[in-house]
């Protein structure tokens, strides 16, 4: 296996939230002790429901937000302090793509100018070389220079996302964080962008952190997948293997809730209860109030992520603590 490009160890991040105008402020643990490593040229998929801390993890990995504790290492070096020259140099090697391309683009600038912007900011190449690079990037995302002259409003959703992708690739980054990049797109356009992303990754040997709630898309693009629930990773393993045989009860429910053509809903696990509120994290295993298999221990102890053979790790007392189950 190639050496890791991104190493995240035990990062946590909490926000304070006030309930009501005069209420007491409470800490919301958005991310709680998350560790990840992404080898060079590979893709790590991060799945989970809203409020599970996927996006916050992505933002911390990219240095857009400092972690409260823990550390992010990029290419073996810790992230430089926000706003310094070293940070800027590091940031040119890592880029981010968001869900809403229209929100990420300036409506009053032709898109080619926006693709060029990172080159100007980081002072890469001569002005002529920058123009050439913009044309090259447009070609790379399968658009023409004519598209570059247009404004975002005159492009379709799929084309806009290609522009965002082109801009992200302008500085020749090694690492890309994609936060729900295809969720707003129609199925046929989604497939175009997913294919393009796979091709570009292979050509440029990009390393990706791919955040999505769509299990199908995540499986399509990822080598390794991590499932998050309330700020913690509950299961992590190779994409094919994890989706074929999820071990954690939450991962099982998530996989089974993903509708598939040609399969009727018989046998689907329907979880009771609402999606969890990060401000009121249950004691013990955060999933236990909704878990169909929860035992007394789950309400007391937080399960740690432990290896269960292969490269799979699961945080569940019932999966990892086989001896307790036998004893019970």
């Amino acid at each position, binding site marked *: 296996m190639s050496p890791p490009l991104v190493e995240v160890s035990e990062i946590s991040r909490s926000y304070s939230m006030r309930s009501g105008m005069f209420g007491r402020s409470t800490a919301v643990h958005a991310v709680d002790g998350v560790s990840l490593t992404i080898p060079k040229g590979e893709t790590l998929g991060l799945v989970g429901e809203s409020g599970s801390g996927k996006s916050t993890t992505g933002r911390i990995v990219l240095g857009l937000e400092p972690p409260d504790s823990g550390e992010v290492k990029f290419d073996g070096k810790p992230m430089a302090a926000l706003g310094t020259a070293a940070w800027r140099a590091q940031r040119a090697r890592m880029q981010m793509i968001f869900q809403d391309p229209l929100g990420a683009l300036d409506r009053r600038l032709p898109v080619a100018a926006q693709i060029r912007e990172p080159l100007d900011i980081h002072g890469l190449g001569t002005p002529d070389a920058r123009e050439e690079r913009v044309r090259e990037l447009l070609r790379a995302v399968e658009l023409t220079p004519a598209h570059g002259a247009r404004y975002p409003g005159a492009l379709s959703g799929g084309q806009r996302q290609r522009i965002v992708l082109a801009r992200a690739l302008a500085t020749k980054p090694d690492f890309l964080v994609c936060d729900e990049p295809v969720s707003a797109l129609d199925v046929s*356009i989604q497939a*175009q962008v997913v294919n393009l992303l796979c091709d570009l990754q292979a050509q440029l040997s990009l390393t990706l952190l791919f955040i999505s709630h769509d*299990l199908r898309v995540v499986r399509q693009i990822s080598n390794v997948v991590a499932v998050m629930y309330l700020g913690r990773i509950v299961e992590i393993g190779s994409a094919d293997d994890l989706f074929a045989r999820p071990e954690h009860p939450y991962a099982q429910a998530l996989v089974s*809730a993903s509708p598939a053509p040609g399969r009727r809903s018989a046998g689907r696990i329907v979880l009771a209860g609402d999606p969890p509120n990060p401000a009121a994290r249950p004691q013990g295993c955060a999933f236990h109030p909704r878990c169909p298999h929860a035992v007394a221990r789950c309400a007391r102890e937080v399960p740690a992520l432990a290896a269960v053979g292969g490269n799979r790790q699961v945080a569940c007392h019932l999966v990892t603590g086989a001896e307790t189950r036998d004893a019970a």
Partner: protein
Amino acid sequence: MSPLVSIAGLSVAFSGVPVLRGVDLALGKGEALGLVGESGSGKSVTWLAALGLLPRHAKVSGSVRLDGREILGAPAAELDQVRGGRVAMIFQDPASALNPVLTIRKQLCEALALHRDLQGNAVKAEARRLLDLVGIPDAGRRLEAYPHEFSGGQVQRIMIAMALAGNPDLLIADEPTTALDATIQAQILELLSTVRREMGMAMVLISHDLGVVAENCDRVAVMYAGRIVEQAPSNQLFADPVHPYAQGLIGALPPLDGPRRRLTAIPGTVPDPAMMPDGCAFAPRCTLASESCGHTAPSLAPIADGRTVACIRAEASRRALLGIAAE
């Protein structure tokens, strides 16, 4: 059996731009029909037009019959009996469909007062029964709560309760789970199928998610650029799609198990309604298109029992089959 709803030649144009170009659709009593297609294909507009919910500047033509009675262009008094009474509709964004400053009880009772002949305490009792039915815990107390006190999944449950207030024969669910998380989506879909079974209600499920439709509907209609391009029982459609667009949609869906394959993306984008190509609207994106596809738009023709397709290739192969049968 006469259909519950039959739509024929339904067309809609907004300021001269056609968005719905002749939709024919029939729905039996108690049947679950799925409507899939990309944004702008006319899935929602079909039902908004059928129920007279489009703004006045929309030009609507064609016919929509409910139990044999024409409801397109019917007087407002008659439509008020249909909407919310015989046909109910729920939408993608449930939070914006509820009034934030009224309690759930007020809003549910309003729907009940309009469509049911109930008085005094009976109204409140029925409102409570409905909340119970859709699985809101502690229904009696929660009636006095405001919409913001419920989670997204619960608000959608309340919308379903309101839709059921008029004892409808048909529920139109327009992307009912799109804004919800996966595990909550599973809950709502299960609720919809339970309610449908218990009340013997027909349902139209509008969704861009092929998986959701496949699992919850008996029959599926695929729409493209304001027309239905294929209609089939759901298991047959997903196992063996005939129209190239339906094939493309299914091929574009990443598999959740088995080997990974490169996705077969449909090239290009949906045509602009103002600049609709001549002939088949899908032809410019179709890998199998021939010259004749650009001449006339194919009509929806039966290819097998309960299956119709609008594609000249399908028509040609059907003629060939019929020719063999005639010999």
